[in-house]
């Protein structure tokens, strides 16, 4: 116990001596949480539309007004030939082309049916998908307006209809920040914990001080614990800072229990730090450790369900995410912060993370050799 106390004293001195680390711990969370949610906004708005109006009728005008006033679309081109409109798509000035054919109004009234042509730039799949869904909704809406003009609505519906009452739970305003902030918080804790711990033992190796530790009677697990505890505390500090920023800037307060969140983070940090230390024992230089950590973190974060839903991944990828600690944290963060899930809802995730923590740390202790 006494040994660990002295080791901790040493580690804390080294950490606070290094300005870069202190700055990273304080500035990174604040900066990231300030910029990332603003940047990572997948809300689809400002879809640029080019309209080719071959009809020039009052209906086509009404439709265009309806589209531009819906709030999702920006009219960036009007009355081109298709070729010109296509140029706009090529130069990224338009995302959608709506072509209103010649005789739109006349055919609609006389023949009861008229086609509209929509071409979507689908390089960005999400935007294309949602943009077209929005446009279809506007057109539907316009369609029922037109119908109302011609058919007197009776007391009862003329035709059987199904009304869909949809409600959005947990985030009724469909606010994207609410979705991103807990996820970014999870990534933040992972990145800081991972990089700091991965660089640490390697630094001792590079500077040569590890030799001095190797010749002392310090036990292997003492050494690893001495490295683990300071970063565990720093991780909690980062997490607290992140929560504060989320509350002060975005007004997001956890729906669920704060205690439960700290409890989960406590176990999670052990897992991430253990992983970092494991990498640290494998590598010879800081540059190498940095790259290896970057490689793994990139995979963890990309496949963690931060940006794209895990549900739509193929089966092999779903299996991979089972071994991805970050995906558990992101999921649990969103569950507790947004849905107010309780302990019994997150038990399985907690179990997996605890398992990761045990495995990574034992491997790190096993792989740290006091003899070279």
């Amino acid at each position, binding site marked *: 116990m006494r040994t660990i106390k002295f080791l901790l004293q040493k580690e804390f001195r080294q950490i606070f001596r290094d300005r870069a680390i202190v700055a990273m711990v304080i500035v990174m969370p604040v900066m990231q949480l300030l910029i990332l949610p*603003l940047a990572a906004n997948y809300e689809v708005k400002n879809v640029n539309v080019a309209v080719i109006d071959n009809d020039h009728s009052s209906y086509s005008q009404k439709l265009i007004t309806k589209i531009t006033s819906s709030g999702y679309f920006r009219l960036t081109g009007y009355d081109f030939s298709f070729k010109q409109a296509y140029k706009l798509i090529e130069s990224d000035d338009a995302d959608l082309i709506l072509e209103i054919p010649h005789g739109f109004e006349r055919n609609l009234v006389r023949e009861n049916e008229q086609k509209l042509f929509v071409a979507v730039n689908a390089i960005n799949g999400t935007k294309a998908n949602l943009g077209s869904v929005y446009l279809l909704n506007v057109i539907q809406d316009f369609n029922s307006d037109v119908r109302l003009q011609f*058919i007197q609505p009776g007391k009862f519906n003329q035709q059987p209809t199904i009304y869909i009452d949809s409600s959005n739970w947990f985030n009724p305003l469909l606010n994207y920040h609410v979705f991103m902030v807990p996820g970014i918080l999870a990534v933040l804790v992972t990145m800081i914990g991972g990089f700091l711990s991965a660089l640490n033992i390697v630094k001792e190796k590079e500077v040569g001080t590890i030799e001095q530790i190797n010749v002392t009677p310090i036990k292997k697990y003492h050494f690893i614990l001495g490295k683990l505890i300071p970063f565990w505390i720093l991780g909690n500090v980062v997490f607290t800072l992140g929560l504060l920023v989320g509350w002060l800037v975005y007004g997001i307060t956890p729906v669920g229990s704060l205690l439960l969140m700290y409890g989960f983070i406590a176990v999670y940090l052990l897992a991430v730090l253990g992983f970092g230390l494991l990498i640290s024992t494998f590598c010879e*230089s800081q540059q190498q450790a940095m790259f290896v950590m970057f*490689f793994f973190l990139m995979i963890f974060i990309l496949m963690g369900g931060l940006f794209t839903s895990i549900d739509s991944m193929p089966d092999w990828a779903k299996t991979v995410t089972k071994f991805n600690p970050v995906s558990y944290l992101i999921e649990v963060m969103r569950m507790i912060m947004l849905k107010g*899930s309780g302990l019994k809802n997150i038990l399985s995730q907690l179990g997996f993370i605890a398992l990761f923590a045990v495995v990574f740390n034992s491997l790190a202790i096993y792989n740290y050799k006091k003899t070279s």
Partner: protein
Amino acid sequence: MKQFLIFIKKEFAHVLRDRKTLLILFGMPVVQILIFGFALTSEVKDARIVIMDQANDPASQQIIAKIEASRYFKVDKTVRSHQQMEEALKRGDIRLAVIFPANFNNDLLHQNAAHLQIIADATDPNNATTLTSYISAIVQDYLADFNKSNNIPYRIAPEIRFLYNPELKGAPNYVPGVMALVLMLVCVMMTAVSIVKEKETGTMEVLLVSPFSPFKVIVAKAVPYLILSLINVTSILVLSVFVLHLPVNGSILLLFAESMLFIITCLTIGIFISVKTNTMQVAMLISLMGMMLPTILFSGFMFPIENMPVPLQLFSNIIPAKWYYIIVKDIMIKGLGFGAIWKETLILAGTTVIMLVISLKSFKIRLS
């Protein structure tokens, strides 16, 4: 010239010695392409949903059969109570719940109006919107069949065509982004760190007193990374064509020329960072925070730039990767020629020249 070649050989030895880093340098683009190409899709499929059928009549059953038949959803019909449904939503087991109230068919037939409730887990807003709209489309489809006998008057039928990427795959958006990211990583970070390493270990002094011009020392440092990057570009393109089946629509020659330009831009940025810093850790942090993170954030392949606040949109213009990303997308996916991208090319070339001049000006031949 012979001296120069020997220097390059020395640098190659440095690079090739560190096997783990090398493995990651070549493994990274492969793994990224595979993840982006296969695992990350913006299309929705296999979303887990619950259907609570309190009506259990012909109409509800037909709609449920339609929903089950679509590949968007994985339907669970075992949930019976609202409490269970709420629990499942909270646990994150399901994304959406569809509730058919009792007498659904009767309402539809006799009152001509039936109600259907959808509850979506909107923690992910886009997912919720998409799933809800899919369900509505299925219901509309059912209604259209139902009403076939009496034609709907004044119908507008929009026809949608998805250009460039009809299956809404993620790859066309991501492959150019991965190229920019990997080149940035190899050229900026590796170059900066390797030059600063010489400073930190003290071998820079030896190089500076050698009869070889200091500028050439730096250039020789950059050459191995140039070659590594070209190998990476090639491997990414090969993977994307043969594994992701994403063909290069434009000229490959032009693509390589532009990549070469971007690699040189990145190398000069790396040199610039190394000139300004003295320790590896600082160089690493600056290239990571100052270059990598902005590249991921502001090049436009992960996060839509047009949704950002105006100051950030303006800021994105100084990120070289953004312009390279546009260039690759235009050549590779849209198949455009040089005429469409000369502006972007000019910006990259300008950045390179400015960076080079600044780093040459501030390059110190003497140690402090």
